């Protein structure tokens, strides 16, 4: 499912205009991105949660040339699936 398909299905399910569904989906992911950007958490019951993890810099190596390269510190979002969704995903195996 793509973002566009999500918008279409939301418009159909709620019987709202596609443009309205689109601005809702835009606002939702914008809010999630901004929260993570500010270092906050996102917690969606029944789906999962996001937090930001900080990674320190280190000196890596180009595996082909062996040349040393400095890898800068970075922040990455980490997703954790909710327990209920994990159980739903695994109920038939």
């Amino acid at each position, binding site marked *: 499912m793509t973002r566009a398909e999500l918008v279409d299905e*939301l418009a159909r399910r709620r019987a709202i205009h596609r443009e309205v569904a689109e601005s*809702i989906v835009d606002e939702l992911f914008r809010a999630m991105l901004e929260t993570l950007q500010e270092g906050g958490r996102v917690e969606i019951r029944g789906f999962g949660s996001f937090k930001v993890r900080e990674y320190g810099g280190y000196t890596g190596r180009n595996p082909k040339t062996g040349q040393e390269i400095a890898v800068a510190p970075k922040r990455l979002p980490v997703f954790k699936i909710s327990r209920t969704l994990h159980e739903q995903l695994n109920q038939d195996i």
Partner: protein
Amino acid sequence: MSADTLTKARLAERVHDSVGLSKKESAEIIDDVFDLMRGALLHDEKLKITGFGNWIVRDKAARRGRNPQTNDSIIIARRRVLSFKPSPVLRVALNAKE
């Protein structure tokens, strides 16, 4: 829960403020969005949200593991996991601001 945690209730407020739907309808719509996303993943579909990231369901084979506390050897059953890969837009957004 700390004040800087974004929840469905807060998302509904944002939709109410920015799109101008009633609070009740905004809350229902937020539930519907995540329900549609969950439905896609449960039907073995990838979920690809441009500008945010992709979720994909992966099958993990059973393997022999170890309880790190007791050191007992155990079998970790076959299972499905959900992996999330952030989009370049999200990665840049998290690292641009100091």
